[in-house]
């Protein structure tokens, strides 16, 4: 927790002058806290709220709005499969089902070993290379079943 607090403080110090008010600064600080802790449990949100002197409900409201803020722990490898119209037309549903079967989890769930989390997401802005999977911070484009096999193997 000490590290998380340090990460929060460092981010506030660094970004303060670029943001017009505390409300605006909240987003980068939440990202920093999430990078440090992995996800955003109540205690971390409270820490952010205190550090920025914002009401805790405001922080919870913001984190609940953005799916990129995790309210549950996520696996080391976070598979975010786009299922918006372009990816859908190019077979993303099939990709999702394939991963479901392979890992034995449904979207929103994490494997028992804590390695993989599967999430169905909205447009990733890469429609030209649909279907797309975002794994942590990287894009994997035009994926097929065999690509999925390769990716999962590499991560295991």
């Amino acid at each position, binding site marked *: 927790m000490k590290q998380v607090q340090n990460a929060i403080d460092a981010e506030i110090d660094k970004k303060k002058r670029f943001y017009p008010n505390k409300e605006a600064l909240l987003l980068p600080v939440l990202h920093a806290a999430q990078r440090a802790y992995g996800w955003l449990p109540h205690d971390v949100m409270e820490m952010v709220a205190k550090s920025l002197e914002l009401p805790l*409900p405001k922080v919870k*409201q913001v984190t*609940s*709005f953005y799916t990129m803020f995790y309210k549950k722990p996520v696996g080391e490898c976070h598979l975010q499969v786009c299922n918006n119209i372009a990816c859908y037309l190019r077979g993303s549903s099939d990709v999702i089902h394939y991963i479901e079967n392979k890992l034995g989890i449904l979207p929103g769930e994490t494997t028992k070993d804590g390695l993989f989390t599967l999430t169905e997401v909205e447009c990733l802005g890469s429609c030209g290379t649909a279907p797309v999977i975002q794994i942590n911070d990287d894009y994997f484009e035009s994926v097929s079943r065999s690509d999925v096999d390769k990716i999962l193997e590499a991560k295991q």
Partner: protein
Amino acid sequence: MGTITFNGKEIPFDEGDNIIEAAKKAGTEIPHYCYHPGLSIVAQCRMCLVEIEGARKLATACSTPCNNGMVVSSESPTVKEAVSGVQEFLLLNHPLDCPICDQAGECSLQEYSLKHAASDCRTDLNRRTYIDIDMGPSIKKNMNRCIHCTRCIRYCNEVGDIYEMVALQRGNNTEIVTVDDKPLMTAYSGGLADVCPVGSLTTKDFRFSKRVWYLRRNDSICDGCSKGCNITVSHEKNLVFRLEPRENQEINKWWMCDEGRYGFHFAQSPSRVLAPAVKGGGSMESAQWSEAGARFNDLVVGAQSIAVVASADITNEEADLLKSSLPKAELYSYSPSVDSSSEDKALDHLIRRKDKSPNLKGLEGRGYSAFSKFNPSKFNLVVYASGGKVRPPYGIAKLSETTVGLGVFLKEEVDGFDVILPGPSWLEKEGSFTNYDEINQHFGQAIRPIGLAKPMSVVLSKYLADSVWQAG
């Protein structure tokens, strides 16, 4: 100052007016949900779309300030189509359960649907459904009917000074909740039902007690503290059902507190004394007006020294009347929370005051002394006048030889009195209160006196002998 052309007519606007306000002053309502003149502007419901000449897109009237010479239409075919589209979207998830919704009859969604939307429904999608949830002591939430205008959230932050209420999730899944199901603890929670434009947030006190179209409304003044908030009284068949704030920019703006809002119940409580009573063999017994009145007169005529002690919730007119009809009496005022108006102060950031009586200033101005100066042993007769909500000091009647109660009393308070002459509460009479700021406010009568209660003017003129009046 300037003018805009609105729907072909030139209308004036004041500095800072947005288009909704300017139109309102000219007598046209531009439909709106998220906009409330007392809250910050977010322009998110899109119901107030208007067409402005020269602008590329439709604009939201709530967030667009008037500019001299602006040409605005709220009636063009483009606007009509857009507004009916917005309304249709808002109804996608709405249960349309007006027949069992308490807001029906005063619901913006219902009114605007009638005026601005198509009468049929083009979808058969499932509605989101939630169960009703208690939100603290005063409010019940029905999330099914919510249109996500966020007025309630802004009201909590900006008026109630609490931050518990938030919108979780987004889009179709947005849900208005209190974080971690915390109860809404603010002295102004009742106002959430006022600002919610639909039947999502209702007060537990009023919900399901009366269809609003049966209610008759009268303007009045709250008697809960020295602020003197302006209110509207809703009543039917001589029963009051609710109080709501009435806008007065000088005093309460658009708001009132919960204590004032729900404070009227005492006047209709079963323990209020509604018939004259005289002391029999030890306890109080109901009596005819003639008998109790005669006893009152005898006591006044026979008394060497008289004091009038008045709760600071009698009207200025009643105070004058007591002074002139009991010319020999010494006059005292009583407020439960302060001895004199100099101790009064604001209780919070908004409107509530420490002095929990509405008219201490008025009584002081009429020569009524502070209660701390009152020495009961000096008097043979005390006439205690009670105008309403302020409860008399405990055991007041036992302090002097004889005591007459004039006005509003509860059964548990009459012990020790010699005569009780029931009078109307502030909702049952007209008069005026002077607030802490020396603003004198007249209010009208909302309902008839309850039970056998008689106005003070009638009691004093009818039962007191002429000799008493002329004694001074």
